[in-house]
C-alpha cells in the first residue's frame, strides 16, 4: 500500500498510474528535460495539480502533472534508519524533575528526506536532543497529551493539575510543563488556582520558534526552566520564557500575572503589575520577587483540580449589542467576566442587562481592558450604577486570569455567596494590594 499523504484528485490519479508513493524516486519528463526526485508529501491545503519532488540537491519542486510525460519509479522508497546518539547517563544525586509534554515540539529532529519534523517522544530521546539537561537534573519526561494550545480546554487543565499533584506525592522536586504559547497564560492561571500551596515549583515553558530550527528558543527556555525548577528556592506555578530577544536569560513570571503580549517575539510574555519572580542568566538563578503574600504562599497544599465550563469573558466595546448578555446566559454562562473600559465601565444599556443577568442568578465581574491598573467602581456614576446592578469589581486581576478563576470557583463551590467571596479573595497572587512605581 503506497503512502500518498496529502495527494488528491488529479495528482493522486497521476501517482497511482505511475504506481508511485511518498518516498519513491520518480523520474518524469517535462517540456524542458527529465527530472528525478523523491516524492514528498503534499500539504493538504495545496491544489491537486502539482506533484512535489525532492531533488538530489535537497530542493523541492512542484510539477504540473498535466504537463508531465512518462513517469516511472526508478527506485523504491527507503525507510530512514534512525540511530539516535546515546543519551548521556543520568547523574544520581541531582534533583528529580518531571517534564510534562502537552503539545508543541520542545525538541525535535528533521527528516530531511521528506521535510517532516518529528518531536522527541520520550526521556531518552529528549536527552539525546538536549544533552545539557542531564547536567542539571534527573529528568523524567512524559507526554500527557499532544494538542495545539488553542485547543486546550478546562478538562486538560484538570488532567494536568492532577498529574502534577501526583508528581508531588512521587517525590519530584519540580515539574516543568511544555505547552504552546498561545494559551500558556490561561493554563498557568488554572494550575495556580488548582494547586494552591504546592510545595514545589511548577514551571510552564514554551517556544515561539519551533524546535526544528537552529535558532529555536525552545532549548534555552527548557534548560532555563529546568535549572530554576531544580535549584531555586521557590514554589508555586510560574511561566519561564526568554527574558529578551537574546539567547541569554530566562524570565520567570508569576502564573496569575503573566500575559502573552506579542504574537511572535521570543520575549512575548510579560508580568503585568508585578516584578519578575526570578531571572536565570549565565547559569545562575536570581530571585527577584517573593510573589504573593505569605498566607497565599503558605496555604496548605490541597489540590482541587476541577473546572467548570460556565465562565465567559466578554470585552465591552461602544457598539456592543446588550443582547449578548442574555444570549450568553441562555447558553449556560453562570459567571460572566466583563472587560470594561477605563476603571471598569460599560454603557448604560449594558448595565441594565448586567442587572438582569445577576437577578437571574448569574455572577457578573468587572475587569479593565486597560490591562494595567485596577478597576474602581466608586469614582464615577457609571461605576456606582454597575455596583447597584450587582457587578463585582475584580481589583487589578487580569481578564484572562479572572475567567479562569471563575471557571475554577464555579467547580469548587455551589454557594453564590461563597463564589463571590472567593472571586474577591487573593488566592494565588492574582491581585495585588498596592500598585507600585516602576
Amino acid at each position, binding site marked *: 500500500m503506497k503512502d500518498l499523504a496529502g495527494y488528491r484528485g488529479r495528482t493522486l490519479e497521476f501517482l497511482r498510474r505511475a504506481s508511485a508513493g511518498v518516498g519513491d524516486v520518480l523520474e518524469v519528463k517535462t517540456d524542458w528535460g527529465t527530472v528525478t526526485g523523491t516524492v514528498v508529501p503534499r500539504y493538504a491545503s495545496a491544489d491537486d495539480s*502539482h506533484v512535489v519532488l525532492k531533488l538530489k540537491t535537497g530542493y523541492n519542486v512542484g510539477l504540473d502533472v498535466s504537463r508531465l510525460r512518462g513517469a516511472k519509479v526508478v527506485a523504491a522508497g527507503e525507510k530512514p534508519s534512525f540511530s539516535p546518539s546515546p543519551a548521556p547517563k543520568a547523574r544520581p544525586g541531582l534533583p528529580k524533575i518531571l517534564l510534562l509534554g502537552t503539545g508543541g515540539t520542545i525538541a525535535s529532529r528533521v527528516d530531511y528526506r521528506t521535510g517532516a519534523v518529528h518531536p522527541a517522544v520520550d526521556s531518552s530521546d529528549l536527552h539525546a536532543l538536549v544533552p545539557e539537561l542531564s547536567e542539571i537534573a534527573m529528568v523524567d519526561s512524559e507526554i500527557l497529551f499532544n494538542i495545539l494550545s488553542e485547543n486546550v480546554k478546562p478538562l486538560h487543565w484538570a488532567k494536568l493539575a492532577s498529574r502534577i499533584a501526583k508528581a508531588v506525592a512521587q517525590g519530584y522536586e519540580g515539574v516543568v510543563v511544555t505547552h504552546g504559547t498561545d494559551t500558556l497564560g490561561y493554563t498557568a492561571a488554572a494550575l495556580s488556582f488548582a494547586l494552591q500551596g504546592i510545595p514545589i515549583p511548577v514551571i510552564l515553558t514554551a517556544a515561539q520558534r519551533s*524546535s526544528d*530550527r537552529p535558532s529555536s528558543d525552545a532549548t534555552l527556555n527548557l534548560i532555563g526552566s529546568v535549572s530554576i525548577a531544580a535549584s531555586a528556592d521557590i514554589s508555586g506555578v510560574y511561566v519561564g520564557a526568554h527574558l529578551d530577544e*537574546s539567547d541569554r536569560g530566562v524570565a520567570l513570571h508569576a502564573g496569575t500575572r503573566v500575559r502573552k503580549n506579542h504574537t511572535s517575539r521570543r520575549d512575548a510574555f510579560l508580568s503585568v503589575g508585578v516584578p519578575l519572580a526570578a531571572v536565570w542568566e549565565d547559569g545562575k538563578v536570581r530571585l527577584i520577587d517573593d510573589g504573593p503574600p505569605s498566607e497565599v504562599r503558605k496555604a496548605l497544599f490541597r489540590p482541587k483540580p476541577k473546572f467548570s465550563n460556565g465562565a465567559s469573558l466578554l470585552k465591552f466595546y461602544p457598539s456592543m449589542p446588550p443582547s449578548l448578555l442574555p444570549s450568553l446566559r441562555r447558553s449556560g454562562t453562570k459567571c460572566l467576566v466583563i472587560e470594561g473600559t477605563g476603571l471598569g465601565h460599560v454603557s448604560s444599556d449594558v448595565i441594565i442587562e448586567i442587572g438582569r443577568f445577576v437577578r437571574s442568578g448569574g455572577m457578573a465581574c468587572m475587569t479593565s481592558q486597560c490591562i494595567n491598573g485596577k478597576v474602581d467602581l466608586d469614582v464615577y456614576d457609571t461605576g456606582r450604577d454597575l455596583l447597584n446592578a450587582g457587578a463585582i469589581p475584580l481589583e487589578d486581576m487580569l481578564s484572562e486570569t479572572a475567567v479562569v478563576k471563575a471557571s475554577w470557583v464555579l467547580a469548587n463551590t455551589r454557594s453564590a455567596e461563597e463564589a463571590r467571596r472567593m472571586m474577591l479573595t487573593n488566592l494565588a497572587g492574582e491581585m495585588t494590594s498596592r500598585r507600585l512605581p516602576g
Partner: protein
Amino acid sequence: MMPGDRPGLLVGLEVHQQLSAPTKLFCNCPITKTEEFPFSFERRLRPAQSETGRLDPAAVFEFSRDKPNLYLWSPESSCLVDADEEPPRQVSREVVETGLMVAAALGSGVVDEAHVMRKIVIDGSNTTGFQRTAVLGFGGSLMVDGTKVGVQSITLEEDAARIMGEDERSRIFGLDRLGVPLIEVALDPVSGTPEFVGHVALNLGRVLRSTGRVARGLGTIRQDLNISLDGGAVVEVKGVQKLNLVAKVVAYEASRQRALMEVAKKLVGRGAKVKCAVKEVTRIVPWGGSEVLSKAVGEGGKVDCVTATGLSGLLGWEPAPGFRLGREAAEVARAHSLGGIVHSDEFRKRGISEGEERALREYCGAAEDTALVLVAGEPDRAERGAAAVASRLELAPDGVPAETRGATRDGETVYMRPRPGAQRMYPETDVPLITLPKELLSAAADSVGEPWEDTVKRYTNSFRLSRDLALRLYDSDSAPVFEALARELMVEPSVIASILVEMPPRLLREGVPEDAMNEARLVELLRAIDSGAVAKEAAPDILRALGAGKAKTVAEAVGSLELSRMGESEVSSLVDRLVRSSSKLISERRESALSPLMGELMSEVRGRADGALVSRLLKERLERALKAPRGRQSSKALR
C-alpha cells in the same frame, strides 16, 4: 600547453547577484547599507539533528567553535523578520518575475511551482540558522568565447547577514544585508584556463545585468567557485567579490592543490602512513624561546602537541613558492580562533631549541620521521584546534581534502570549515508555495531587455564607441546615464563615455578621491561642456580641483581655474599673436610648424577652448601666413 593552462582543472561557478528591488525578499524593509547600528542582540544556533541521528560535519564545526553571534541592527534596514522574531511574508511578485527573466535570458526550463526551502546554515550569517531559498529553473546555457557553458540551476534566495568582525566573546554580524533578494546561477563545471573561467563569470554577470533588475556596485555580485584538479576533491571557495579576482583565485587554488598533490606523492614515495595523536605538553618545556607559546601559557592557556607520523620535513616543504602543508595546518588552527601553530620543520626558526625538541619527542614518543605541531591557546579552544589540525594532517596522503575556503581581497584563499555534507533542506512552511503559470513566464521573457551583445553592438554602431570602451561602459554602473546623455547632449558620445568610465579610474590612480567624481558631478561636468561653458579638455583639471576641495561645484571649479570658455574671436586673436611672433619658425619649417605651434597654443588655452576649434583656426591662419609674399611679411614684421 598554454602557460596558464592547468591540466585537469575543473571549475563550477555559482554567481550570486543581488537584485534591485524595493524591499527585502521576505519582509518590507528597504535595501540600504547601514553605518550606525543602535541595537543588538545575541544568539546561539544549535544544529538540529537529522532523522538519521547524524550531524553535519560543517554544522558540528560551527557549533564546536562555541561563540555566540552578536547581531547589530537598525530600524532603517531591519525589522523583526530579520531578527527571526516574526514570520516571513510572502515573496513579492516582482522578484519572482526577475527570476523568470533570468531564466528566459539563459534559456532555462522553469518549474511549475516553486517551493521555498530552509537550507541549514549555522555559521551565524542567518539569524534563523537557515537560508531561505527556492529553485526556479534548470538548464539553459550561455556562450563564452565561442564555447557553450551549461546552466545547472537558477535559484532565488535571501542574502546573508554581513560579517563585521569577531572578538573574544562573539562573532559580530550586521543585519542590513540579511534578506536582500539574490539570484543564484550555478553553471556546469568548465575546464580551461583561469582566464577563461574569469570570462565565464564576466559574461554571466552581463547576462544578469541585461535584465535591468539587478543591483549595481561593489559587493552586489559574489562568486562561489567549486575548484578541483584531476584526482583531487572539490574545494569550495566562497565570496569572490570582484569579477577580476575570479581568474586569480582559480590560478591560486590550482597551484595550491597541485602543491598538496606533490606532498601526497612524496608521502607515497616514502611509503609513509600518517597517524596523528595529541598530547598536552604545557609543562614539558619552558617555552622561553618562543614568544607565541610562552604568551599563550602565561595567559592561562595550554599547549597541545600533535604528532604526525611520516610528515617530518613535509610541513615546511614548498613544492611551489608559498605553498606548504604547514600553512594549511595553521589556517585550520586560525579557523578555531587560535593565533597559529609552530611545527617541527621550523622549530629552530621559531625559538624551540634542539634540547627542547628532544624532550618533546621523548615525551610524545615521536620518532625522527614524525612531525610535531604545537597548538597553543585557551584550553578548550586549543584542544579543539589540535584535534582539527590532527584530522587535517591525516588527510595529507589524499592530497586535496574537500573543504570550504574563503577568498581574500588579494585573490588568495584561506580555510574556513569542512565541506558540508549533503545539503540539509526542509520546507519553509511559513511561506506559501509560488505557482509559476506559463503566462507569467512568457510575460517575463517579453520584458527581458536587449541581450548584452546587442547593447555593446549598438554602442559601437550608433554611438561610434570603440568595442573596448563600449564593453567598459556596459560593465560599469554608468550605462543608463550614458544612454540618456548621449541622446540629450550635443557632446560626442565617445567623450561622454570616456568621461564617465575612463577618466575617473585614471584620476583615482593620481589620487583624486572617488567621491569627487561621483555620477552627479560627472553629469554636471558633461552638461557644462555641452553648454560651451567649458572645453572637454578641461575636464581632468576640473575634477582635480573638485578633488582637492578647491571648489564645491563644477561651475565654481570653472571660475576658480579661470577656465571660462574662450570665444572664437578670442582664440582667433591668440592664434594671430602667436603666428606673428613665430615668423622665424614658420619661415624655416613651413607647414610642419603646425605641430609645435599647436602644442604651444593648447598649453596656453589650458582647456578653455575646444582643441578642434584651435586647430582649425591655426591651420587657416598658418595657410594665410605661408601664402603671403615673404617680402610683405618681413616688411610687416619690420613695421
